[in-house]
């Protein structure tokens, strides 16, 4: 109860302004001081000494007033308001600098908003040409690499890149990768700024954003419509997702030898989450296996042959 009363009183004091309250406090303290001086005079002290003693006993009037102020209102709000007032006054005095600041800030914020809006809509919405309806399936894959070699040494096939670009994997891989790229670029250009890791991240983010845009924008509708999972089924089977597309370009360098290519033979289990309209349980596993990476193709590119066991039934 007392706390509530006190809080209300403090809010009231803050709203009421401090000038009147300060004035009253000053008068109260002055009266106190005068009484003290009078008492000292009555004790027989000379006027100067009486005043000096009274001031010593008071112990710093300005400090006392400040202590009272801290108890009276809500100092942090009052300070905030005072700061705001000061800022406003200052801005008013330097309009040109203020205008510049506002322009720069709004440009920066606006650019960010636009970029992230575009990126977000590109990364989360299906590409143009693919309707957002029940025929759309979502393919989640786990790409297991058989044999030796770490992830970095493994070349990603174009479908994988495409696939990764559209999923969390893309973000997961993309950011560190683009930071690395950004650092390389920066080092090549001999930018001194790259010593800061934060800046590296920032540059990486920008490169990622630009790269994502570049990766998404030129792609037209036909390129995105993926044919079946090499099962000879109709278009409907895999409207989104591209694991198992028959051929594609290859990102990175070609594998040096056949042996290594065998190591890269990979299995990917594709989890197909069917939409409710197909009346299938979600989480069905579709053991679509990349049998082998065939290389080089007739056009000098690597291709993938995808084999699906015949007993797998797609709801075509």
């Amino acid at each position, binding site marked *: 109860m*007392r706390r509530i*009363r*006190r809080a209300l*009183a*403090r809010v009231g004091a803050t709203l009421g302004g401090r000038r009147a309250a300060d004035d*009253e*406090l000053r*008068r*109260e*303290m002055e*009266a*106190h001081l*005068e*009484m*003290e001086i*009078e*008492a000292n005079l009555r004790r027989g002290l000379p006027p100067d000494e009486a005043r000096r003693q009274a001031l010593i*006993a*008071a*112990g*710093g*009037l300005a*400090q*006392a007033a400040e*202590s*009272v102020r*801290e*108890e*009276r209102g809500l100092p942090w709000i009052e300070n905030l308001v005072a700061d705001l007032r000061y800022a406003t006054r200052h801005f008013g005095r330097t309009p040109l600098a203020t205008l510049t600041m506002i322009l720069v800030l709004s440009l920066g914020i606006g650019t960010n908003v636009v970029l992230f809006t575009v990126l977000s809509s590109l990364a989360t919405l299906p590409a143009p040409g693919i309707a957002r309806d029940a025929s759309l399936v979502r393919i989640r894959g786990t790409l297991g690499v058989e044999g030796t070699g770490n992830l970095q040494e493994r070349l990603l096939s174009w479908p994988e890149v495409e696939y990764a670009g559209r999923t969390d994997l893309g973000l997961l891989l993309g950011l560190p990768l683009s930071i690395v790229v950004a650092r390389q670029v920066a080092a090549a250009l001999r930018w001194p700024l790259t010593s800061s890791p934060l800046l590296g991240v920032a540059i990486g983010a920008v490169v990622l954003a630009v790269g994502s845009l570049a990766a998404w924008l030129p792609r037209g509708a036909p390129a995105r419509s993926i044919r079946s999972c090499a099962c000879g089924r109709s278009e409907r089977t895999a409207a989104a997702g591209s694991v198992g597309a028959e051929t594609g370009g290859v990102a990175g360098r070609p594998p040096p030898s056949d042996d290594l290519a065998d190591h890269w033979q990979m299995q990917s289990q594709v989890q197909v989450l069917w939409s409710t309209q197909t009346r299938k349980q979600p989480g069905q596993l579709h053991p679509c296996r990349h049998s082998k990476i065939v290389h080089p193709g007739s056009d000098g590119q690597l291709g993938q042959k995808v084999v699906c066991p015949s007993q797998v039934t797609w709801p075509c």
Partner: protein
Amino acid sequence: MVEKRDVQPGTLALMILKTLEVLGPLHGYGVARRIEETSENRLKLNYGTLYPALLKLEQEGFVTAEWGQSENGRRAKFYSLTPEGRKELAREARHWQETADLIASFFALGPERS
């Protein structure tokens, strides 16, 4: 010369309330003087201690303040106890008494003989 002590936090409110109960409406100077006298000048009470405490009591509704004439014709702000303040004083006095009794009973312990 007796060493003057600063007031322990939390105790000053109680002293002020008790002083106002005994003496009736009183200005800041009167309160300070009375507390110093009662403590036989062992306590020193500067403005920075006294006035925040008075303000806090006022905000909590235990005292009210209004301007009036002092005994020698000076305008001063007089503080007086509210019914709430009286209750708070009784409550706090009991609390302090219990604490003091408790501590005293511990200090009264002698060496144990078995």
